């Protein structure tokens, strides 16, 4: 039975999650040098187009279609065949199946867009398009099936992932790590200055991400109900506390509270609460967010020590924040908050932490290996990087024949 309130809420949430990808584009674009501002925006923006097309043709079917051995959906819903306006028996049975499909589409869009921050300022646009098409098909859809698809093996195991800690954040963070290992550093990394060219743009992007995240997490309740309200609250609380904790950590270690630190902290908190949002109390969200800000800041600091060039810290924020969030779900989850969830370690069920750990390891191995193989093959066939000369001139002019600013 279609419920009007639920349907309205999910459609609005879908729009909110859609808005996150342009928000991400601004978040990233402010941090690059001005010769790459448009190319960086474009890498996120065009994914809205590309992944939507893939999603309606075969992506949704592979992720949510009839189960094949718990690993992937079948292609029988190719082109949304049978995905109609009445509710699906398997997913969100109070809203039209197409509403569920388009809500999930927005998740499928932002996940690969997150990865683009890792290889910002050096990836060839044509190679990016092919990579995203392959990654969405071969990595995202199966992973979404494992956790959320009817019959998916991680879901059956009892892994808790409310809104995509493993599927969205760990997968993109780990894939980002594989990508930077293959694509390697930007020219001049460690010698030249890579100073963000427009931090107000980054802060604007952060605000849009935070706003959109209410659709991401509260919408994942798949109904307009108490669970949605709870997820909304934990989401906001974690982001708020993480922006403070990152800022204070930085203030103590580097002597100044920076705006980029506060913004990065907010995103780290949002990432960490994502798997936990509908399973934990607001006070647990304070702890999850507070630690997320510090953990991700440390991760970003470690990057410089390890010497790999994850340009915009996808590994440090999404990989690490997502991992912490997935583990934290195994610590703080409580059936008093959500009877359909499970108890975590702190509520007398240590087994949940082990299941969470397994789901993290499985996601990491799968995403890392698949991304590594896809990029190795693409590198051999078409090359992943722009030429050195193009990199120095900037991707805006060389890839798109445009410049972001004319003075």
């Amino acid at each position, binding site marked *: 039975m279609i419920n009007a309130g639920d349907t309205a809420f999910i459609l609005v949430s879908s729009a909110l999650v859609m808005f996150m990808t342009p928000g991400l584009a601004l978040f990233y674009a402010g*941090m690059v040098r001005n010769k790459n501002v448009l190319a960086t925006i474009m890498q996120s923006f065009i994914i809205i187009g590309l992944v939507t097309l893939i999603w309606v043709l075969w992506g949704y079917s592979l992720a949510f279609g009839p189960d094949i051995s718990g690993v992937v959906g079948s292609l029988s819903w190719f082109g949304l065949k049978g995905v109609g306006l009445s509710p699906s028996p398997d997913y969100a049975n109070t809203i039209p199946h197409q509403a569920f499909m388009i809500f999930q589409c927005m998740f499928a869009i932002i996940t690969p867009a997150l990865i683009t921050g890792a290889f910002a300022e050096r990836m060839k646009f044509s190679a990016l398009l092919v990579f995203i098409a392959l990654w969405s098909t071969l990595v995202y859809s199966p992973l979404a099936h494992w956790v959320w698809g009817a019959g998916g093996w991680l879901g059956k195991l009892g892994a808790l992932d409310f809104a995509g800690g493993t599927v969205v954040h760990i997968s993109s963070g780990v894939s980002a790590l594989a990508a930077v290992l293959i694509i390697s550093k930007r020219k001049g990394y460690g010698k030249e*200055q*890579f*100073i*963000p060219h427009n931090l107000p743009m980054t802060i604007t992007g952060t605000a849009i991400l935070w706003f959109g995240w209410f659709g991401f997490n509260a919408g994942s309740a798949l109904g307009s109900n108490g669970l949605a309200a709870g997820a909304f609250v934990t989401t906001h609380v974690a982001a708020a506390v993480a922006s403070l904790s990152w800022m204070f950590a*930085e203030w103590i*270690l*580097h002597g*100044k509270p*920076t705006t*980029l*630190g506060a913004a*990065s902290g907010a995103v780290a908190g949002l990432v960490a609460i994502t798997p936990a949002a509908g399973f934990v109390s607001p006070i647990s969200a304070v702890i999850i967010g507070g630690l997320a800000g510090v953990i991700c*800041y440390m991760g*970003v*600091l470690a990057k*410089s020590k390890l010497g790999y060039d994850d340009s915009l*810290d996808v590994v440090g924020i999404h990989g690490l924040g997502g991992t912490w969030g997935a583990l934290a779900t195994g610590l703080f989850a409580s059936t008093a908050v959500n009877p359909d969830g499970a108890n975590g370690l702190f509520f007398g069920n240590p087994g949940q932490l082990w299941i969470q750990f397994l789901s993290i390891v499985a996601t990491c191995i799968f995403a890392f290996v698949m991304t590594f193989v896809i990029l190795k093959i693409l590198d051999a066939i078409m090359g992943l990087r722009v030429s050195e000369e193009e990199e120095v001139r900037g991707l805006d002019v060389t890839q798109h024949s445009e410049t972001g600013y004319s003075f």
Partner: protein
Amino acid sequence: MKKIEAIIKPFKLDEVKEGLMEIDVKGMTVTEVKGFGRQKGHTEIYRGAEYRVDFVPKVRIEVVVPAELLSEAVKVIEHRAKTGQIGDGKIFVSSLEEAIRIRTGERGKEAI
């Protein structure tokens, strides 16, 4: 005629301008510039990565005065731009051959 070129701290610009107007200097040109002297640059921090920025923002003012006003004008700039901290800037003085007011064609002191 003399040309005074002074590189000063940006926040001192208003004080210097008011001082020069008080002694009847008729006009000035101001440019935002970047450079370094003994002050060198500063450090910026982005997500924990520290970057040295070698060029410090300054304001350059150019004033042309009749020779008899020179010492007073220089004194005003020197006093008003001074904080006593490193990075207060410098004043350069040079002789100027000719000045022309384009609208009227006046030459020399009349054109200043």
